């Protein structure tokens, strides 16, 4: 009787062990450098990509490309969460088991199982309020090999701001890559903007109609530690 009991305990344990031992993690794919360079002009982010590092500030499509070979059982993507750093999926219920989520949620979390541990990536729909942009920060717009910088005079609304100088050289109805360099912020130094447009007064900028492919990565956690970058080539080499 005792022997049978031991077998009952041992058998599932061995099965689990076998399962863990045999888990085959797909290789993380190299992101499309050409697409990246067409979207991102920051030399720091371009260097990071070349070195095999997923870094905060990069657009979300880099994550999609890295984990392109992952099956749904090894990842959960686009989880709506309340704030950056939160891991709790938002969901409410009413009536006969009908689920719903606040459609105004703009912060999302991805969760990936890798051979070296669990990776969490938070990203959000950017606007000037949520990314703490304020007066006296500097807006730098990249256009045809030149960087045009000017101090921000005021924010018109969450998606529109006005700078001090007139930038007549920039064409209207064109999407620019831009950076905002913070003047005085406790932890942010630069934020990256992948679709910003200038209005006809040459001083006011508005955010373009973006989608989640261009949402900037805001925060990452690897093996329960906050990290500024995730080195995917090291993870691939471990396999």
């Amino acid at each position, binding site marked *: 009787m005792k022997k049978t009991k031991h077998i009952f305990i041992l058998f599932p344990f061995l099965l689990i062990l076998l399962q863990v031992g045999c888990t085959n993690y797909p290789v993380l794919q190299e992101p499309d450098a050409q697409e990246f360079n067409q979207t991102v002009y920051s030399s720091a982010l371009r260097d990071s990509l070349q070195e095999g590092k997923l870094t905060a500030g990069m657009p979300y499509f880099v994550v999609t490309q890295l984990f392109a070979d992952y099956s749904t059982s090894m990842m959960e993507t686009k989880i709506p969460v309340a704030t950056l750093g939160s891991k709790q999926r938002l969901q409410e219920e009413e009536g006969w088991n009908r*689920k719903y989520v606040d459609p105004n949620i703009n912060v999302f979390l991805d969760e990936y199982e890798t051979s070296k541990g669990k990776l969490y990536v938070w990203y959000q729909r950017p606007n000037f309020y949520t990314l703490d942009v304020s007066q006296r920060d500097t807006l730098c717009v990249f256009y045809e090999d030149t960087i045009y910088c000017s101090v921000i005079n005021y924010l018109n609304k969450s998606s529109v701001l006005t700078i001090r100088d007139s930038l007549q050289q920039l064409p209207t109805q064109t999407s620019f890559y831009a950076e905002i360099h913070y003047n005085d912020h406790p932890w942010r130094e630069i934020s990256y903007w992948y679709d910003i447009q200038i209005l006809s007064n040459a001083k006011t900028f508005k955010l373009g109609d973006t989608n989640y492919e261009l949402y900037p990565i805001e925060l990452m956690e690897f093996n329960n530690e906050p990290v500024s970058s995730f080195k995917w080539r090291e993870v691939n080499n471990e396999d």
Partner: protein
Amino acid sequence: MKIKKDFIKGNKKIKIISNGGKPFPIPDSWQPVLSKCDMLVIIPDMHMYIYNSHLDNFKYGADAMLKFLNHLSTLKEEMELVDQTLRIYQLGDLYEQRFPGLHGPNATAIEIRMSHPDYDQIINSMNLMRTHFLYGNHDFELRHFPGFRFAALEGKVYIEHGFTPDSWQDFSNPIASLWEVGQFMFLTIREINDFFANLLVAADVIQKDEFYSWGVPSGKDPVYKYPSEKDYLKDYGHCLKYYSERMKKNSELKNNDTKITVIGHTHHPYIKTNVNNGKHIFIDAGAWTSGRSDFVVITNEELAICCYKR
């Protein structure tokens, strides 16, 4: 403001489908019908659902919607330069939440919006233009959140999704338009529908992204025609009757000055300009799903149901 000159502005994709292709003039004695804006654009039922699903009947119209929103965005900016306001309404059933979800029995707005970059961009674009959202019977859960209303009054124009006169055939009953039992049955039918669609994919009978929703046109082929009055009265005569009586009662009892009622819900565009002996106008805005791409434009001088060609 005139619809052809000030709204269409030579955009060849926009066609007026009501009143034989001509805007209907608003009677002089009613003007102005708008109080806080100069032009009203009303986008009806879209029923956006998870992009790759067999049941999504919006995806074929998504590209046209992005182009249409771009037209509206430019127009709104230009109007603001001369101190005029373009106000945009989404008439409800923006999302299809009565179909199965990825993480629960029914789909949520976020799952749908994040299922494709175009869908996210459509919502972002609407938000950037400060679109006013109403909720419908297929996204009734949105009533819990700020920014979503049951109905709106813009001057003398009353706007509502239009599910209140629902009957038995719409999974409701005449005294409970969102009858819990009916809604549950509807969701169950769609779950079974989804199960069989996946089975057919596994058996290689249909393709992975082939449309397979029972009783709903796929939307692959565009539909621009304006259905006949006879068809509308046969299928949705109860809606016309309900809102005609409401407008009549309102004007008698409450000294209400509502002249025009706009609803959606039926996916069947229709205008009746002589409601209650010419005292009111009833507009059914149609739909932007299942191949249709209808919307309503109202200025102080004219109104029309239009469509946006792919």
